[in-house]
């Protein structure tokens, strides 16, 4: 058995070595096909990343009534931190609010002087939410509950832009999934067909192996292995090309390259489509005896 496996692997290497130019052309075609997919993923990934970063800022700002003292504010903060979906709370005292105002808007700091020493910015509680609660609907529900609490003057949570952001993230997720699926299927067919054509040139090898009594799996194994190697080499090549394009554009269009798990997905898709192409190619190369 070990000898048969060794020989099957040897056959695979021999196939590649003996048709090196064909192999390289096939790898190049697979690389170029995959590059379209990689660029689509790169654009999608960066768009989604930007939207997610925006979503990261989603939170609730709870303004307290002037009569609420610090002890009561902290009790309120405790109460809010126990609510479902709340990750953390942070109490901002009137003094801290003023300091932040002066730091963030120094040109408008004079307004505070005009309003006189008796004026204080309201104390507030900043509420940070768990990721899955940062949708317009869920934030709205939490905000409404908080606004009904004793001592709360006003609640702000970006109600103007949050519904649009939530919709954009949701649409983008569906679009990436659907377009990705369609692209992955068409790409697999292109790669499978390219590898199938490469395998079809080996009709004589398939026939001779069958005639000398090679078991079907022995005949298929080297070809499927070759298809996988072609697919992986092609998808790796496409990643290198995409990375080169990405690097060239990084100074003019700031973006991030694909994350590790997406790279693994592309390589796995390459391996799968290459193996599938080989398998299909051999099915047409194998002529079963007919009555």
């Amino acid at each position, binding site marked *: 058995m070990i000898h048969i496996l060794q020989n099957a692997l040897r056959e695979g290497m*021999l196939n590649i070595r003996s048709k090196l130019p064909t192999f390289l052309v096939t790898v190049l075609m697979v690389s170029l096909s995959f590059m379209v997919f990689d660029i689509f993923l790169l654009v999608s990934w960066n768009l989604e990343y930007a939207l997610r970063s925006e979503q990261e800022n989603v939170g609730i700002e709870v303004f307290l009534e002037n009569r609420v003292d610090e002890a009561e504010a902290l009790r309120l903060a405790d109460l809010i931190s126990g609510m479902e979906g709340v990750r953390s709370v942070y109490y901002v005292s009137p003094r801290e609010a003023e300091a932040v105002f002066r730091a963030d808007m120094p040109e408008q700091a004079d307004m505070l002087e005009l309003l006189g020493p008796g004026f204080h910015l309201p104390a507030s509680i900043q509420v940070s939410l768990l990721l899955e609660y940062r949708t317009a609907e869920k934030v709205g529900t939490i905000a409404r509950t908080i606004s009904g609490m004793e001592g709360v003057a006003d609640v702000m949570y970006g109600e103007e832009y949050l519904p649009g952001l939530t919709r954009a993230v949701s649409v983008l997720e569906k679009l990436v999934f659907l377009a990705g699926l369609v692209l992955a299927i068409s790409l697999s067919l292109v790669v499978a067909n390219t590898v199938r054509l490469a395998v079809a040139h080996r009709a004589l090898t398939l026939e001779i192996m069958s*005639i*000398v009594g090679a078991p079907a799996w022995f005949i298929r194994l080297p070809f499927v292995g070759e298809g996988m190697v072609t697919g992986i080499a092609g998808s790796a090549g496409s990643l290198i090309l995409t990375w080169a394009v990405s690097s060239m554009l990084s100074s003019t269009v700031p973006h991030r390259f694909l994350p590790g798990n997406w790279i693994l997905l592309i390589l796995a898709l390459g391996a799968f489509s290459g193996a599938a192409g080989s398998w299909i190619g051999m099915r047409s190369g194998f002529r079963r*005896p007919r009555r």
Partner: protein
Amino acid sequence: MIVSFNNVRKYYGSWPALEKVDLRLEEGEFVVISGPSGAGKTTLFRHVWMGDLPTTGTVEVVGFSSDGIRSGDLPLLRRKLGIVFQDFRLLPERTVFENVALPLQVTGTPPKAVRRRVFELLADMELSHRRNSFPNELSGGEQQRVAIARAMVAHPVLLLADEPTGNLDPEVSRKVIDLLVGINRAGTAVMLATHDPRQVPAGAARFVYLDGGRIVDPSYWDGYDQL
């Protein structure tokens, strides 16, 4: 009996390639299947290695029957046969050694045993000096000897030679036929398809004549006129 055709008919569409063929081959026998081009010789051979199955009737070869053979049985059947073609069908990207070793490698024979057997056979075929050559570096006669070595390397029960001299000049053809006769004398059954039965020495083989897919009586066969 190692080969038995029982009332075999083969139709490709409506075209009859074999008609009511009954044929037996005993162990160690040499049978020459002769007939003009298109007589059905190659079709008959394809039925022996079960590259085709009969439309009606039964073919039995070394214990395998066309009636119940499964895909998984085909390699087991073919390991008991050696097959030689007119166009040699050597793998062009492999050396002589690699071509001859192939039938042993696919069955998992240890590399040492493969080397020993291939070297022995190449010496018998006077091809030792060509073991690292590629098929396109060989003459037609040498290529056919390599094909015969590949067919014989796994000690087949039956050697099928389908027009092995079709692409060779008369002198080389005679040597190939002598080689086949020698193989048969060493105990291997041989089925040889040829359109020229005069190549085979009288008394060395049994002759079967095919015409239009039917086995015909040699006394009524006018094939010689066409040679």
